[in-house]
């Protein structure tokens, strides 16, 4: 089938290390789309892993809360990924002090995030880079998980995974200790930190560097002991860290003033140190928090960026 080019690139909207992003149109349907043109020249190790992972994992996933990979095409020896056009992200909303949002809005964003994560995990895919900046917002209010450049299969038990994943502030304790085997629990930790950030409207665990991240994390949430996490002493760095007591419920209440008891329980459940005991997406989605009032805001009624 041969016809006119299907995609037009209209405006460059961003440039990353391995791609240039354009806004464009899919001609046959007149749909607005984003085109990621993968840079192939100038890279010592050829085609970037992030590009490969993005195609690999998005190709077969279809879910309202996961970004859609519309097409893959080659043009002039360049690889192009056509993605849904999503103009805003959760970080912009959190940072924009002119936007007020309610507990019901937070519940709605968290619900959509958890649904997206649940879909990834039930397809045995770890996202490994969840943060507000990677939770994009569609014009109809739907939140979508994006940037699968660090994603990977859950892998078989004997495989070694790298612990150098997830943006620092959202990194789970097992990763801070350099674990070579981990599970979807690393994503759940990130969601917990994002939940906290939505309530505080500032980053919850902002470590200055990798060492500081360990300190910041345990100062806020308490240093894990081998009583609640028996494997902890197998990590080499464990003995060298400062011991902090876990925060009392009262301290949490004071830190998260507007949160209900159920909200606090859910957040704490996602921020359990021992990954085996941390809540999984199903436990979160069926938690009391989503049953109590207020109901989550309808996506179409969620606050939007005040565009000039």
């Amino acid at each position, binding site marked *: *089938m*041969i*016809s*006119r*080019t*299907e*995609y037009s690139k209209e405006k460059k909207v961003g440039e990353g290390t391995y791609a240039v992003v354009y806004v464009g149109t899919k001609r*046959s*349907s007149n749909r607005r789309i984003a085109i990621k043109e993968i840079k*192939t020249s100038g*890279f*010592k*190790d*050829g*085609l970037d*892993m992030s590009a*490969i992972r993005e*195609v*690999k994992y998005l*190709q*077969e996933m279809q879910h309202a809360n996961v970004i859609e990979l519309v*097409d*893959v*095409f*080659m*043009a*002039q*020896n360049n*690889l192009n990924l056509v993605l849904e056009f999503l103009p805003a992200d959760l970080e912009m909303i959190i940072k924009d002090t002119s936007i007020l949002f309610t507990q019901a809005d937070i519940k709605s964003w968290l619900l959509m995030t958890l649904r997206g994560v649940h879909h990834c995990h039930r397809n*045995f895919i770890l996202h490994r880079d969840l943060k507000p900046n990677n939770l994009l917002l569609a014009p109809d209010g739907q939140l979508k998980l994006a940037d699968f450049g660090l994603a*990977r*299969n859950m*892998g*078989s038990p004997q*495989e070694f995974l790298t612990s150098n994943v997830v943006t620092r502030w959202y990194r789970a304790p097992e990763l801070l200790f350099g674990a070579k085997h981990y599970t979807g629990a690393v994503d759940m930790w990130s969601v917990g930190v994002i939940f906290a950030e939505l309530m505080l409207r500032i980053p919850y665990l902002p470590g200055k560097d990798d060492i500081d991240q360990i300190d910041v994390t345990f100062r806020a949430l308490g240093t894990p002991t081998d009583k609640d996490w028996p494997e902890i002493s197998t990590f080499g760095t464990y003995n060298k860290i400062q011991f902090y007591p876990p925060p009392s419920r009262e301290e949490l209440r004071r830190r998260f003033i507007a949160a209900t008891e159920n909200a606090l329980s859910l957040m704490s459940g996602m921020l359990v140190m021992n990954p085996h005991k941390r809540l999984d997406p199903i436990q979160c989605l069926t938690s009391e928090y989503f049953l109590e009032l207020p109901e989550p805001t309808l996506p179409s009624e969620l606050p939007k960026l005040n565009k000039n």
Partner: protein
Amino acid sequence: MSGTFQTQVMLSRPYLTRSQIKRAQQNTIPDRRVYNQKRLSAFKLLCDMCVQLKFPRKTLETAMYFYQRYYLFNKFETELCYDVATSCLFLSCKQVETIKKIADIVVASLRLRNVLKVSPEMQDNCKKRIVQLELRILETCSFDYRVNNSIHIDGILVKIAKDLSLSREVTHLAWIIAFDALKLEILLMVPQHTIALAVLKISCELIEGASWPNIRYSLFESDEPSVSEAYFDILNFFINVFDLSDLRGNLTENLQNIGIETFIELKKHAGLEKGLKEPDNISSDALLTNERDFTIRERRYVLSRKRINDERSNKHIQKKEKT
């Protein structure tokens, strides 16, 4: 319409039948004998590289799929085939997450090819060629990540064997046979779990006292014609070149009596050779008969035929609306 403003939609077809493969190779392989000879030495290079760089078998398997797939749609030239093989391995490392630096792969490749003095310039040139080939290889696979992703023969073989309660001996023999199966064109015809089923069946038939359970292949997401295709392909391989196979050198003591005759005997018992149904339209199949036109500006790769059909009917509606 000018050639530079065109788009082409390619439907991914990761598996082809034997005749379809032959037809595609008519365009790309001028001398079958030379191709086969070089393929053996390219595969030897891949095996040696995997041993030296300590890659698991899945990395090798994926590289071998890429190599054979590449030459379905790209002209075979003897000079380039080792670079193609190296590039396939480099890409398969990314595919199965056993990542290695390009420099390590290039050095290993050149050394194993007996290049005595590996100069930095030689390395750089080789790197360049490998990176250039990488995208071409992916294009011949239509960027289809459904294959060679999480299922590999050696892994799934063990899982199926456990499920069917087959003995350790049967499974181990199957695992050895599967290594020979990697080098066959069967990789391009049926998915890995189907090859695993065929290999396990052969292994059961070779070991005294073991018997292949009479199962419905649909239980393992496969079917009779596909398993038969793999089964007969592997039997024929051993009947033709048992002496050159890796199986011969790796048989355990109690299985030393296995030889060509054993496989001839198995084939006799298996009855008429059967396999995948060959389609009638091979001579008019554009994917196989037309050489690829890389001048077309936009080459789109899709996984489902439904997508193409939907777009066609959309266009049809739009045209109607215009008129």
